[in-house]
């Protein structure tokens, strides 16, 4: 009786899987716009995007959103493979070892710049690989626990109070951060400290959840984070933005003071960006075709809706291949200078 029951389940399951794959196959075919329209009939088979970070994180989400959009443009399946580890370096041997035929795409971030500028990697993102596009650009904010009375005025977060506290307790105010000194977060925090004349204690948390939990739990004073990453915790009333690290206040956070508009900070802050790359020696016609296809994919309605939902429409998020290369080259210089000032290894 049991084996019969099992068989029934198996049959039902198999039927469901068949039905699902039929539906998926059909939708992929019906949405195929230009399968094999590229040079030499490219693309003929599935394309893989290697993500250097774990499933569910910002990079993974970006790759999946772009992958889904690109499927519609390219007419072939676009598969995402996560190869996390070593701060985003663990994926590189597989990417660099794959043929330069446009079928293997690398998803990476401004981490490639900081890793290269700090001599932790030898891969220069401006010269050694070819970008297709930057798909996300995100600014950062400082956040506080929304119930932390020390930093509230009339129930609203007040950066002046944060400053006052930091000045009264030099080196005591704790800031939860992704890294200590060598990445975007660390360098930006260093600039803020210098400008405001404060000294904070930066605690590096590798895992995002621990970073947020430490501030919500009241064990750390301030959180440094990209706007889009903690939007839901702001909406739930657990965290409150207290400073926008941007020249102007953001429309969605009109009450949150900005470094430029409210404090006269002139520095143009570096931003978090997420990009797609191919190997540098990919044949030019295929590289050009892929760049155009990704531009089209980025602009389609469903992808734009996704960007908006994630709060990644606040800044202009699209950069083409040449612009991305220039951004990477400029940032390598900016970060190298910053590291040199800090007495750290630099290019």
């Amino acid at each position, binding site marked *: 009786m049991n084996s019969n029951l099992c068989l029934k389940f198996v049959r039902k399951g198999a039927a469901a899987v068949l039905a699902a794959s039929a539906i*998926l196959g059909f939708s992929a075919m019906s949405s195929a716009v230009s399968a094999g329209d590229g040079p030499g009939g490219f693309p003929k088979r599935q394309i893989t995007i290697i993500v250097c970070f*774990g499933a*569910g994180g910002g990079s993974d989400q970006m790759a*999946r959103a772009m992958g889904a959009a690109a499927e519609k443009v390219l007419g072939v399946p676009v598969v995402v493979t996560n190869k996390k*580890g070593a701060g985003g370096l663990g994926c590189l041997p597989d990417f660099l070892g794959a043929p330069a035929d446009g079928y293997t795409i690398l998803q990476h971030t401004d981490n490639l710049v900081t890793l290269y500028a700090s001599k932790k990697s030898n891969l220069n993102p401006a010269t050694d690989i070819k970008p297709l596009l930057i798909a996300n650009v995100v600014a950062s904010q400082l956040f506080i626990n929304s119930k932390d009375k020390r930093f509230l005025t009339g129930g609203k977060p007040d950066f002046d109070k944060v400053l006052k506290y930091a000045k009264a307790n030099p080196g005591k105010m704790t800031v939860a951060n992704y890294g200590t000194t060598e990445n975007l977060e660390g360098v930006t925090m260093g600039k803020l400290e210098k400008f405001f004349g404060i000294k904070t204690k930066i605690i590096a948390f590798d895992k995002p959840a621990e970073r947020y*939990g430490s501030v919500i*739990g009241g064990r750390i004073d301030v959180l440094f984070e990209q706007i889009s990453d903690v939007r839901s915790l702001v909406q739930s009333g657990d965290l409150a933005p207290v400073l926008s690290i941007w020249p102007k206040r953001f429309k969605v956070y009109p009450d949150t003071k900005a470094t430029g508009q409210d404090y006269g900070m002139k520095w143009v802050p570096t931003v978090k960006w997420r990009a797609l790359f191919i190997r540098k020696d990919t044949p030019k016609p295929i590289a050009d075709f892929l760049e155009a296809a990704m531009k089209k994919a980025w602009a389609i309605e469903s992808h734009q809706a996704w960007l908006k939902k994630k709060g990644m429409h606040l800044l202009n998020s699209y950069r083409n291949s040449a612009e991305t290369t220039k951004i990477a080259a400029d940032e390598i210089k900016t970060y190298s200078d910053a590291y040199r000032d800090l007495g750290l290894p630099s290019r």
Partner: protein
Amino acid sequence: MENFLLGTYQLISDPTALLLFASALIAGLVFGSVPGLSSMTLAAIFLPFSVFLPSEHAILFYGVIYVSGVYGGATTAILFNIPGSVENTPTTFDGHPMVKKGQAGRAVGLAITASAIGGTISCVVMMIGTAPIARWAISAISPIEKFAIVFFALAVVAGIGRGSFWKRWISLFFGLWIGTIGTDPVGGLGRFAFGDYYVMTGINFTVLIVGFFAVSEVFVQGERLVRGTYKAPRVSVDFPRFAEFWRLKIAILRSSVIGFACGVLPGVGAALASFLSYSEAVRWSKHPERFGTGEPEGIVAAETANNSATGGAMVPLLALGLPGGGFTAIMIGVLTLHDLTPGPLVMIQHKALVWVLFCGMFWASIAILVLGLIETRMIVNLLRIPFAILGPAIIFFSTIGAFSLRNNILDVWTIFVAGILGYVLRRYGYSLPAIVMGVILGQIGEEAFYQSMVLMDYRLLGFFDYPTAAVFLLLGAATIAAHLIRTARRSRVRTDR
């Protein structure tokens, strides 16, 4: 109660949900029960497909395989001495000796029932207390307390298992060293990586378990086969009696509490739960000397606790988005892939989803009891498979399982190196569970220690300014002292003789 009924109704009234529930239950049992594979493998393989499911179905699937996989890992631990995942390791201490005594059915039966009881109790606590417990946990546990808990856990792990006290400590330190291979958690510098990007990704402990236990076990048994000393284990299906559980009621209750409490702690989770629960069972027992030789209470302590930890782990996961271990980290991934950010909002905005998950896990725990008893009759027959077939199959599954976790070729090399190393270390009486726990605790502890040092301005004694941290550090020190005294006494008795 209303939520529970509603969640259960949603589960049984939706044929797709019911089908997924059943397939997750069976898949978790199967993956957990195949040596070399684990529920983690299934979780990683299924991740890309979960995108195509509605969010409540996807999370239900993962909740159920989490529960059934932890149980499934117990069967291989008992039958083949190969724990499915680290939290099943203490189950091998008494489970496998029982198989050698010809009590395979009884041992697996004990594990199933203990798992079901632990799982059910923790589900009930989880349903009642998720939100308030999670709030308390994040305000109570900072890196300072976390480091103290890791220290305590190291002391506990060093105290139990086979081999001598000193060899366990050496094993533990060896594990701590392996944990440093890769990229350091503070400055992002490569350590013992020789500039190789693969090695910089570090040694994954799940992979290490596969190498140490599954692959090296194949070598051990293979050697016996070649030498002609291989003895096929005896198959039996005599189940434990109710009276046996009634006798162990206090142990079950204690293990449930320990399991849930450890599950709540971010990062340490189920692994600490089963080790601590086993060590407490030894401490409170009137016959501590029986542990390690096939004592039923050893299985019950470990399995009740690790299943109880699954419910505990849901608390910080759902309420705050804090994963307690590898599996729960994948669940965070599942939620985010469906545009849901785990955290206080999920509990409010997606109440239906949360309750489908709660109910799925609750009924999975109950179902394990029924299904597990049926399955045991089949699964003990795995022992009848000739080793010449089973051995290569284990290597085959281990290779696939290792690669699929991170799509990293280093992991495939790791299982074979660890397999050979494990074979040698076992022969000389070193403790493989202690090495694995050293890797896990070292990786968590190092980051916590660094963060604590910055927070406390690099004052080593600063830990004692925090009461919870002080308590755990003292408990750890007391545990080490107690083991030292016991070891000294034993060696004196030996010399007196």
